């Protein structure tokens, strides 16, 4: 069997059903053998970055690793942003790149680049394969590494001559053990008991839940611990959906664009229990001013290196979130008698600092678009947001009650992520309605993938929140950089309805509130992809927001009279 067949056979053994890729000189042998493996569906993207984001969206929506093919040099380098996006958000992915033949590696051959070197800091692990016999072992290890522990992308760079080489009989064994890779899954029982005691001993506790809760499917266990202990729960941006937003104990999203009542709760808590999260700068804002009244931090995460990376916890539980919360549940005590005061205080903050927006200037408001969208989708659709204002509006103005319905590039903040990721999500979950929410700036960065949507009639509905500018940057310039609007104007853009038509999908423009409903009706009634160009208020802003470099206490809300 040739190396190329070994790769494809190994993918079949691992249960791969779909590959997002792009052929080129250094992976020709793989593509030559691909038609002989009809179980593997291949989606030809229009740019390799699109392939990486599609694989990412597929992985986030299904929990299975997304698979990417690309050629050497520019092909592989076009994956870097997508690999980083997956790496920052702990998304399992396997990228298989062609490399120049072993005889010319290191000689600046045509389309040669040091892909291992270029991707080292944005992959969980990587392999350069120079011997055909290594292929089965490398692929089985890659799947084990990508999908277990804290998931992440793994890159396999295979020289072209190795793909072509005859490798003898194919023997495949699934990897489950590696000497240097032992994910900590089970919690230390002494520590979880202690965590439950600390929770019971706190007067103003807050639990914050991150992506780890969703990745480990710990939402039921989280709900149980929260309800039994009477502890309010906020989520990170990537944790949105880990705790139902309408629950009386819900604090909604935390961090520098979090809700006012969440910020108040965090800043007044005497105990913070962080579950499955990195406690990054978007959560804490200015670190030295974060949670100033907290006497203790409990940190639960599967990655030991997160302990003390940003915040030094008083109690560390290095474990899978679901197993840690399951182990903790029996020790969790009912809340003390005075817990009502803390919850009443939080309710008061919720009243005092509600999410709000203004329609006073007569423009179409993004929140109205999202509210109508939520009304018709409820908890059934997957929403994939891009980066910027659209992302935060989509996080805050939907009442997510289940995990896995809101996907976005939280850590990397990759513009152009949403549309290809939404396609990948829909390929993985054809049973779910999938919506893409994006600004016009991010959308055009990967809009070439409209051809993929049309070619495969992928019924992703694109909600373009078009404010004719780089809205988040414009808001930062207005609010924090002296009002100097510098290079954020995007009034010269294609006519998006015509653009969609040129690609071969239906589209519609919406300028007024009354047009929202019929536009969504048409989008939902149309089979296949559909784009709605919502021309929203160019001055609409995201609130609350914490000025860059400030502490959470300094959060701004919608100015009065706006």
């Amino acid at each position, binding site marked *: 069997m040739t190396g190329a067949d070994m790769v494809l056979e190994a993918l079949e053994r691992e249960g791969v059903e779909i590959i997002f890729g792009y052929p080129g000189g250094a992976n020709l042998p793989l593509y030559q053998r691909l038609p002989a493996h009809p179980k593997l569906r291949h989606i030809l993207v229009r740019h390799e970055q699109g392939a990486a984001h599609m694989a990412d969206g597929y992985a986030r929506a299904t929990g299975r690793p997304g698979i990417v093919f690309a050629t050497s040099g520019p092909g592989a380098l076009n994956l870097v942003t997508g690999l980083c996006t997956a790496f920052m958000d702990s998304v399992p992915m396997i990228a298989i790149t062609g490399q120049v033949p072993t005889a010319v590696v290191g000689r600046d051959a045509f389309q040669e680049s040091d892909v291992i070197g270029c991707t*080292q800091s944005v992959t969980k692990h990587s392999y350069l394969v120079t011997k055909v016999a290594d292929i089965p072992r490398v692929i089985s290890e890659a799947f084990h*590494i990508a999908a277990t522990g804290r998931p992440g992308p793994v890159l396999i760079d295979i020289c072209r001559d190795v793909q072509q080489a005859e490798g003898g009989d194919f023997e495949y064994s699934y990897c489950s053990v590696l000497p240097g890779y032992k994910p900590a899954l089970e919690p230390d029982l002494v520590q979880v008991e202690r965590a439950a005691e600390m929770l019971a001993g706190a007067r103003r506790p807050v639990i914050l839940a991150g992506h780890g809760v969703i990745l480990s499917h710990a939402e039921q266990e989280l709900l149980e611990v929260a309800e039994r202990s009477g502890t309010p729960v906020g989520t990170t941006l990537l944790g949105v959906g880990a705790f139902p937003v309408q629950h009386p104990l819900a604090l909604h999203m935390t961090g520098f664009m979090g809700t006012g009542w969440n910020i108040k709760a965090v800043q007044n808590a005497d105990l913070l229990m962080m579950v499955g999260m990195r406690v990054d700068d978007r959560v804490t804002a200015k670190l030295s001013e974060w949670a100033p009244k907290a006497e203790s931090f409990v940190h639960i995460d599967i990655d030991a290196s997160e302990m003390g990376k940003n915040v030094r916890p008083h109690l560390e539980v290095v474990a899978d979130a679901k197993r840690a919360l399951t182990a903790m549940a029996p020790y969790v005590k009912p809340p003390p008698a005075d817990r009502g005061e803390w919850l009443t205080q939080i309710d008061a903050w919720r009243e005092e600092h509600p999410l709000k927006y203004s329609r006073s200037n007569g423009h179409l408001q993004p929140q109205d678009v999202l509210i109508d969208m939520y009304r018709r989708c409820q908890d059934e659709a997957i929403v994939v947001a891009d980066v910027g204002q659209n992302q935060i509006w989509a996080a805050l103005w939907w009442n997510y009650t289940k995990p896995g319905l809101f996907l976005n590039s939280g850590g990397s903040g990759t513009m152009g992520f949403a549309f290809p990721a939404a396609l990948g999500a829909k390929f993985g979950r054809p049973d779910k309605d999938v919506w893409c929410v994006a600004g016009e700036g991010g959308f055009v960065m990967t809009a070439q993938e409209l051809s993929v949507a049309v070619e495969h009639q992928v019924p992703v509905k694109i909600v373009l929140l078009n404010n004719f500018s780089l809205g988040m940057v414009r808001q930062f310039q207005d609010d924090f950089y002296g009002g100097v609007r510098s290079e954020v104007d995007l009034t010269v853009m294609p006519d998006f309805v015509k653009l969609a038509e040129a690609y071969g999908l239906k589209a519609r423009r919406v300028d007024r509130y009354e047009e929202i409903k019929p536009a969504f009706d048409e989008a939902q009634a149309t089979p296949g992809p559909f784009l709605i160009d919502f021309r929203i208020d160019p001055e609409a802003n995201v609130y609350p927001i914490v000025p860059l470099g400030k502490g959470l206490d300094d959060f701004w809300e919608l100015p009065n009279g706006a």
Partner: protein
Amino acid sequence: MHSQLRVLRVLVEDNPGVMARVSGMIRRRGFNIETITVGPSTEPGRSRMTLTVDAGHAEVDQVAKQLDRLIEVIEVEDITDAPTVSRELLIAKLDKVPPTVEQYGARQLATGIVELTADSETVEEFIEFLKPFGIKELARTGPVAMRRSA
């Protein structure tokens, strides 16, 4: 040895690129590594590294954990506070070899070239001692270390 210096013993898989992974991680996490030494271990296919890190406890804890995240890193051990032996090798080319080098336990290797194996503090002292004799060239390995037998 400087009081802030901490010593890590690291067992790694002897794959091409593993040094690049270790040094790349150290660079991008902003850690300050004083020395790295690497050589084969007793286990086939595995190498032993000794790192000295200029850091307090908290930072070295992050270095160890970040190193441990690398798939090819099998074991990381902070042996700073353990009873250890630590040695490094120095060779120096001098204008003139002083007859008293032997008081440091050094010896002459070739004409004008001396060798010393000692702990890093003694190596530093020895360099100071040599300076008046005209150091033309100097090479040192950085320390290797291990725990003392219990």
